[in-house]
């Protein structure tokens, strides 16, 4: 099946209910309540955004958000920000271990939070671009964009696990 790639100059998006957008093409065709989802939520935050209808069927794909017109870009980004939550860790405040379960208290761009890591070998991954992805015991994800941009103490605490 051929993919329907959006012409970035021929579409207008408006937000409907936080995580949904309505799309209006310059041909006059409209689509209501489309749900933008990243096809590469880890590796490509701004590229290849799939827009799904209520049944979960793909209606169109945005190749690159940056190519959209400012209003459309803002609408899509607003939906994606509402949907995706991978807090970025800015500091490791405390790291304790009991019975091989690690407890991390971290400062993130979403605030301070404490979570458990059941198995540090499986739950902490270094990505191809050097980012570190952490999955806690409840399957929540956290990201360290650049380990070496953290404070020295945080680096020292995290380094053995990566």
């Amino acid at each position: 099946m051929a993919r329907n790639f959006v012409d970035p100059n021929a579409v207008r998006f408006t937000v409907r209910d936080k995580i949904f957008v309505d799309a209006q093409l310059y041909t006059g065709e409209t689509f209501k309540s489309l749900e933008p989802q990243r096809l590469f939520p880890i590796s490509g935050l701004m590229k290849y955004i799939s827009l799904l209808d209520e049944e979960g069927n793909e209606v169109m794909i945005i190749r690159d958000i940056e190519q959209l017109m400012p209003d459309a870009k803002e609408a899509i980004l607003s939906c994606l920000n509402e949907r995706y939550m991978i807090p970025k860790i800015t500091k490791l405040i405390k790291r304790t271990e009991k019975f091989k379960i690690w407890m991390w208290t971290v400062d993130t761009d979403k605030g301070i939070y404490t979570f458990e890591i059941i198995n540090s070998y499986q739950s902490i991954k270094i990505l191809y671009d050097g980012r570190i992805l952490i999955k806690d015991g409840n399957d929540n994800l956290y990201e360290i964009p650049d380990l070496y941009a953290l404070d020295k103490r945080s680096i020292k605490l995290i380094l053995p696990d990566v």
Partner: protein
Amino acid sequence: MAVVSDLNLISKYGNSVILICADRLIAVDKYLPDGGTMLLFEDIAEAKVKRLYGNAVFKAEMKDGKTLDLLRFTYSTTDLCDAVAHFINKVNEGMEIEEQIEIVRNTYKNLRSFCPKCGRKLASPDAPCMNCKGKGKMFEVLFGYIKPYIKPLIVSIILSVITTVMALVPPYITKMMVDDIIPSKNEKYLIITIAALLGVYFVQYGFGALRAYLLRITGDRIIVDLKKDIYAKAQYLPMKFYDKTSTGSIINRINSDTTQLQNFMLRITQEAVVQFFLMIGIIIIMLAMDWRLALFSLVPVPVVALLSRYFGRKLSPMYRRLWRRSSSISTILADTIPSIRVIKSFTGEERAIEKFDRYMNDWMREDKHAAKTASMFPNAITFFVTCGSLIIWFVGGRYVIDGTTDLTLGVLVSFISYASMFYNPVNFFASLNDSYQNALASTEKILDIINAEPEHNFGKGIAPKFIEGKVEFRNVNFSFDRSKKILNDINFVIQPGETVGIVGTTGSGKSTIINLLMRFYDDYEGDIFIDDVNIKDIDMEFFRSRIGYVQQEPLMFRDTIFNNISYSLPGAHVDQVLNAADVANAHSFITRLPNAYDTTLGERGVGLSGGEKQRLSIARAVLKNPNLMIFDEATSAVDSETEKLIQDAIDQVIRGRTTFMIAHRLSTLRKANRILVVDKGRIIENGSHDELMALKGKYYKLIQIQSMSEKVAADKAAENFE
């Protein structure tokens, strides 16, 4: 009841609350208009949890068409919010409140299962606490493996002490020779002393050889026990463990980590004891010979201790990182070597080599880093130790030259020998930290397996005399992880002997229903019953022995056809195996093979076609005469002719047995008494083929689509034929 979330509505960490009463809910969040809202259940059309990415939202669809976001939370609270949404919807449907509260309570209980003794989180509410069971502590675990071999180890220690004492004798004899025997030119004493030395050397090296043999044998036994235990434990670990742990990493643990640990255990039980006694013995001798020089020789000890501590702290994280790298290499190997056909067919050899090179280089870089510290460490220690002997030469030499003390040249030479012997144990204990850190990294990985929660009720629980085959799913919900719900409120009852088809698109949850029935995953919400007995109360070994399971991709062992079939019933009589093969339509093709039932299959059944392997797999399932049969897309990967052979086999096998059939080709399900249509984790249709066709719903559509594609295929075939 109340649910406290860990996010506020604008996705920042914070607490918001939803309070649930019998007929209304109150949501409190500072980002709600007026900081909160109260809704009556009767105004709510549907309460639901919308899973986003890394968070979820509790939504209420109101009867007036509006949708309200009431609570936002991370996946930590998702299960509980799911249960609350379910509660509201069921209460609105007029269900009993107490019954629904019990479901929410059970969900909460599942989430909050802690050991009452130590507070550790448990894998499931009834799971034993591994910490309180006494496992989990490194030394306790290790001692458990050493204990059975304590006798040979004690003998070995005694031998070590004897060889150590013998090692202490030669320097003293040197002193006697230098100070007394040679200056007095007493040849008779010289010969006696040399003979005594010969005896000492004989005992030292003879007993040393005996000790080495004992140590090797004992070490081998310990490692064999350890490997056997890890392998055995790995067999009983739940599927969830294998979903998250790579095969390579498990192989790495069984092979190299156990060897690492064995070396460390022997160092601790043998070398450490010997070196300790050696150190004490030498200190006593040195103090007896000259207490001042003895004190001087102790000068480097605090430096060595401090250095050891410093390097230990540096090495520990390095070894952990190194372990990660070597585990990644094992994972790559376990992944690519069995997939060599795929690699070759896509000419991916170079990519595979490149990837492996990259991982090896990564390991090399980390090892280089660790090697710098690890190599610097013993040499730094040796340097300080050597400085110690220089102090003795300097101080002792001056005493001998001045003649102000009674220190003779023989005593000094002998003292220097003892001093260099003394620094060996010091060196040993200093470097013990290195192997301790290395072993610690390996132990952690081994304990991951040894301490992992095994499948429940294996060898426990009830074993009914007879299973009729009534199957019931009641309010079953399941997710592999909290990010996506795979099964949603599954309810159905199957009567004994019924043949049930499960259909649905790929990823709809068909196989997951079977996975839960097989108890591959036990952490679902709701209940599954066989003959009105909860399957969690039945002994898992017995339970699985009553199910015949035929998978889409039949897996064969590298063994003979006979052994592959009889795998399901060890010790089966030849007649039974032949009958099973006959029922499965496999006997005729087996007899045509030159080695017939003695044909050894290659890895994963190489040498047979897909259809032949599938028929062996059916024969294997039939042999144990199960009460329940499960066919998971058993005919999806074979041609029409083979499909017919397999279908004939299936028809014979399912007679009188409750049967679940997941089928890709819907035509194979026409004989099913009942068909369950699964879509997005829910059962959306349930009835006979005729009933569902009359319903003109999803099943009808699937049949239409498949008929059309079959017609197109038939037309194309006809065109080619013409």
